[in-house]
């Protein structure tokens, strides 16, 4: 049998199957199940026996207030840092405590990112932030240790803001650990989450004051996209070392069977 004829028959079969499927779908009115969208959960911890569900809005509000107090205004990309730190905390807690609610005084976070908004986010969760005396009964530990191993002792907003001038994608590493068990998990943001020119552009727009209007706009788009990713993408899409859920093997087998059936039918007819 000529290959060309088999090809035509396979094409005819595909057409027949397409219209048969279209007729079934039309007549039955079948609708696609709604896609499960990622939902940004709350960081749940226990503070002296009381369960607290900390939302990103609550953290954002605190961070904004503290940065405004210290600097008079808020850098435009602050939200992105809060989202990244918040997501890292969510992942770290779920990996270390595996569904259990951790006690606030058992949480230790070591950040490699010398930046005020992310630091305040971690400080709020560990209860180590400024003016948190009335908001917590106990506190965990938060430290900033740079990539070269230097401990940043001055965690004031102004100082961290100055240090954040030279940050890169490699600095987005956070170690979340349980003080009691010593178990820890390093959350590392994937490098490709950030556009290639992002940190250069950030330095120019946020610190240099020499950026053109176009560059300013581009920076706004870029950090907004990153922020959307932090708030809406699955963990494996933004963090290193996590595997994408494997496709259902039964569906793959079914798909291969359908393709084989088309070829065999084309050979028989």
């Amino acid at each position: 049998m000529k290959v060309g004829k088999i090809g035509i028959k396979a094409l005819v079969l595909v057409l027949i199957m397409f219209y048969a499927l279209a007729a079934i779908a039309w007549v039955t009115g079948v609708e696609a199940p709604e896609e499960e969208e990622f939902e940004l959960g709350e960081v749940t911890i226990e503070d002296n026996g009381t369960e607290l569900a900390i939302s990103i809005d609550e953290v954002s509000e605190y961070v904004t207030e503290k940065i405004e107090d210290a600097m008079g205004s808020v850098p435009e990309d602050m939200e992105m840092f809060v989202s990244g730190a918040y997501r890292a905390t969510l992942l770290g807690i779920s990996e270390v405590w595996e569904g259990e609610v951790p006690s606030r005084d058992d949480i230790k976070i070591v950040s490699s990112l010398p930046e005020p908004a992310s630091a305040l986010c971690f400080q709020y969760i560990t209860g180590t932030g400024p003016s948190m005396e009335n908001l917590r009964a106990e506190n965990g530990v938060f430290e900033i240790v740079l990539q070269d191993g230097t401990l940043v002792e001055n965690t004031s907003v102004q100082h961290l803001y100055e240090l954040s001038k030279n940050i890169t994608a490699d600095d987005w590493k956070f170690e979340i650990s349980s003080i009691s068990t010593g178990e820890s998990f390093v959350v590392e943001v994937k490098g490709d989450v950030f556009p290639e020119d992002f940190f250069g552009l950030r330095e120019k727009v946020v610190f240099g004051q020499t950026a053109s209007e176009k560059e300013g706009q581009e920076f706004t788009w870029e950090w907004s996209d990153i922020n959307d990713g932090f708030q809406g993408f699955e963990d494996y899409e933004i963090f290193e070392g996590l595997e994408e859920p494997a496709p259902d093997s039964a569906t793959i087998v079914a798909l291969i069977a359908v393709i084989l059936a088309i070829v065999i039918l084309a050979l028989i007819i």
Partner: protein
Amino acid sequence: MMKFKLGSAYFAILGVITLAFGGLEVVTGLPGIEGLSTGALEIPPDLWRGIIIFFAGAFITAGAFKLRDIHGLGMSTFGSIMLWIIAGCDIFTRIMESIPNGAGGLNSLEGFLATYGPPYSPALFLLPFSLVIFYFIKEVEK
């Protein structure tokens, strides 16, 4: 002889309908105009697609009046092929969209079937009707 007269009428009607749908796609493809949708039919707002379908209709209609002649039949066949290319792209798109679920995995059975559901583009409605051209190709071959 009668077959060809009926065939001419059939392809003239098919050509005019194709031409009209092509025209509509061109109009909806113009800036500021939205796509049309009625029942299971959806006219996608795509200017270039519309131009191809419009000319497919024009060729089918022009060839329909001299279907017995090889040139007329060729013209209608050419118009039909243009239509098949557009419909083929639509079919290919649907097949490809029916396999993944949009979240990195494979689609569920419901999601797979729903991909083949309405709305359909005019090209998908017209494709089966245009396949009649094969009958006349065989007839002329005889």
